[in-house]
């Protein structure tokens, strides 16, 4: 198969690759992009561990072809930082609430939650659970993940005041 040259930016860093048309984005992110924080859990778009933001919106990078991401801005969980704190406070909330056990779903969960929280504040726990329906977790039963997200939401509320 012939290859196609593409360039994208991952967490602000340019990445160039020569890809076959059927190469999934997740492979380019992990190989040429050296972003090991993007995981491969199922390859069929169900588990959500490959979640990244593509031009600001969450997608399953195993279901997007790399050629479709030519020229795109990709944000992975390592691109979510806090200039003051170092560790982004949502990530800190996850760690403090025990929302990460094995941690494999965590990058996808954090990205998805942060995206939603930027659009809706004060969501109920049931709404938060709806946000996460595309991110499977096999370890936690989700309760502490919702705790962490809710706690960060409240924390942001307090700092807004």
């Amino acid at each position, binding site marked *: 198969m012939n290859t196609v040259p593409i360039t994208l930016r991952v967490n602000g860093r340019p990445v160039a690759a020569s890809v076959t048309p059927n190469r999934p984005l997740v492979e380019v992110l992990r190989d040429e992009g050296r972003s090991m924080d993007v995981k491969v859990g199922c*390859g069929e778009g169900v*588990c959500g561990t490959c979640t990244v933001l593509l031009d600001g919106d969450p997608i399953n990078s195993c279901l997007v072809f790399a050629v479709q991401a030519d020229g795109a801005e990709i944000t992975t*969980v390592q691109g979510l930082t806090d200039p003051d704190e170092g560790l982004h406070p949502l990530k800190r909330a996850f760690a403090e609430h025990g929302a990460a056990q094995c*941690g494999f779903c965590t990058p996808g969960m954090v990205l998805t939650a942060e995206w939603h929280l930027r659009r809706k504040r004060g969501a109920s726990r049931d709404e938060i659970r709806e946000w996460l*329906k595309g991110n499977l*977790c096999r370890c*936690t*039963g989700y*309760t502490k993940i919702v705790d962490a997200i809710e706690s960060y939401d409240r924390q942001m509320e307090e700092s807004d005041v």
Partner: protein
Amino acid sequence: MSETLAAPRQEQRSRRDELHRDFVEKVSGSLRYADDWSMPGMLHGVVVRATLPSARIVSIDTEQARLFPGVRAVLTAADVPHNVASEDPSGLGNDSVVMPVLAVDRVRYDGEPLALVAAETQEAAEAAAQLVVVDLEEIPGVFSVEAAMAPGAPAVHANGNEFVQWHVGRGDPDTAMEQAHLIVDETYHTQHVDHAYLEPESGIGWIDTDGVLTLRVSTQVIEHARELADILQLPQSKVRVIATFMGGGFGGKEDMTVEPHVALLAWKTQMPVRMVWSRQESLLARQKRHPLTMRYRTGVDASGRILAQDITIYGNAGAYPMLSARVLFASAAHACGPYQVEDVRIRSHAIFTNTVPTSAFRGFGAMQVVFAHEQQIEHIAERLGLPADQVRRINFVSRGVRRPSGETLDTEVSVEDCLDQVRSTLNSVPAAANGVRIGRGVACNMHPYGRNVFIADRASAWMGFEPDGTLVIRCGVTDLGAGQAASLVQIASEILGTTVGRTTVHIGDSALNPLAGGTFASRQLYMSGNAVEQVARELRDLLAPVAAGLLGTAIDELVWVDDTVSPRTRPDSKLELGELVRHAEGMGVMPYAHSTYHAETGSFDPKTGTGRTAPDYTYGAHGVEVEVDEATGLVKVLRYVACHDVGRIISRNRVEGQIQGAVAQGVGYALSEDILIEDGSNTTTLFANYLMPTAPQLPDIETIVLERHLGKGPLGARGIGEPPIGPVASAIASAIHDAVGVRLATLPMTPERVRGAIRANASTNATHTDEAAVR
């Protein structure tokens, strides 16, 4: 939300969950799992698998595959020096059956490994795998336990389809049954389920300096290094396994997965080789949980007291033993649950079929039986017209009681307290009333932690101080996300007053750590935790006289906290640990120790069915509220509360997390997870078909954690990894019955089954109504 009933404690610091390094790395995204590593010149390995469940291998032609550009090796059975992936270790010396690494002349299950390919790219390896020509002659197979037990059934292995039979029991159940006021005779069926951890099976192997074959792999057991050495016919000292932090295990990484394949390819090519299994091949061919058919005959008196139990369990072992003998032993040993009985016969059988092998999965045989023993209690209660909780209370075991195996329970039994807590929590909020059918159910269990005592389990740990007072722990535990590494740091902290930030723990390396045994059987906190507590005390005992001398106080006046030592009466006279350590070394007192914790031992006699089994148990009770849609059969879990006595909390977040995670897996097991195998062909090979609960499908899982301080683990703790998965299915089944009046005995309780039962029940009632009208 959780409550504890804790005795006052001197050390409060373990209550604060200081952030351990691995959790920070997980939320940052920087933790490197097994596939997040590469090595220069690394090859990619792929498994060629059988596509029939039962066949004779006529030939495997690898010529075309070898010639494919980029291919460096294609291996078949003849290339495996000692072709034994596992040989049943039942622990009690039964006949062994070999599972080969690569099939020799027969295919026994759909997906069985036939050949291995290593190539310069993943694409080349996969393309070459397609070019391996496999000539199979299909032969009749058996795809269910019933078919396997039929006279004249095709034999999966030479010695027949019944692999092992266990007997546990005592007294005279037949006579006792004759005295019964009521006999409840029911049969329960459970299904194949998959661990479905999100991190696929993955790892990389290479030849390191000094010719040591080294694997860096997602595994629960680094001691497999010895088996790998045997497969390759290498000295056992020449194989090293490094376990990465796993993205989930649950028992699915307890047997070897990619290890023998990676080892063979790396050894053959003398190059680093990486292998990652696709989700499809994992769902297809990696070992599953044993489906059990459990027939319970329970005889009770008029008050519901159990007089006799006669239990027969059949487990589908699949094509090869793996850990089937031990799983079916656990089913038998724990079949009666937390209820007393003097006259009891329990038989369990592991039966081969031409389906995917079954092996370890959280609960290990002792969780499936909870569905049965709890539903039996519900049946008894219903038929006697008594509340189920009353029947439970009449029968609950207590400390000092003898179990079916004849052994006595020698620690605190808190199952009744757990039930009380669950009832009061459930009852504190009225049931939902939104126009659909709502129901509540409870279930209790006792789950073993620690390996059976006849196995003589042990775990070792090394602990030492650097001259600057920072602490190093070396212990060969593997961490599957439940904080196995972090717990050791916290236990050391309890004894030595060291802080998380000044402690480094090295785990999971068979060459560099004292071996601690694998992470399974809810044994890790019990075993390595005790080893670390023991070695920490030895280290403290070494340094205490030096500290006492320097501080001018008595040894038992020393307070070890916040990386310092001080006299109880003069807390401001702090001696930094670094200073203490340097003084000690100057006096010739070396600031390190190595210790081995030996678990209690015992024996079990398979002939009489009596003896000792697990060292101890974790007791629990769960309560659930569900909503059932009668039209569709869909069951929604509205509320869930789980109570367990963990002896002592080492980390609150992690204990609660284990309970919540196990409950979530239990809900999937109860309602929707099912590996469907049709005529030996596994048709559930996508996450799209294998339905695990998603976030909106689970409520907040409320945990109530009791601390009775009398467990056999470190500081009085009990294991909690497995126990909470047991009660879920029965609690939900009882809640469904409470809601819509039907009681299912087959898992999972899918919408189709629930709706079918509702309709069958309705037509039965309609028939009775018609008959009554006619009369």
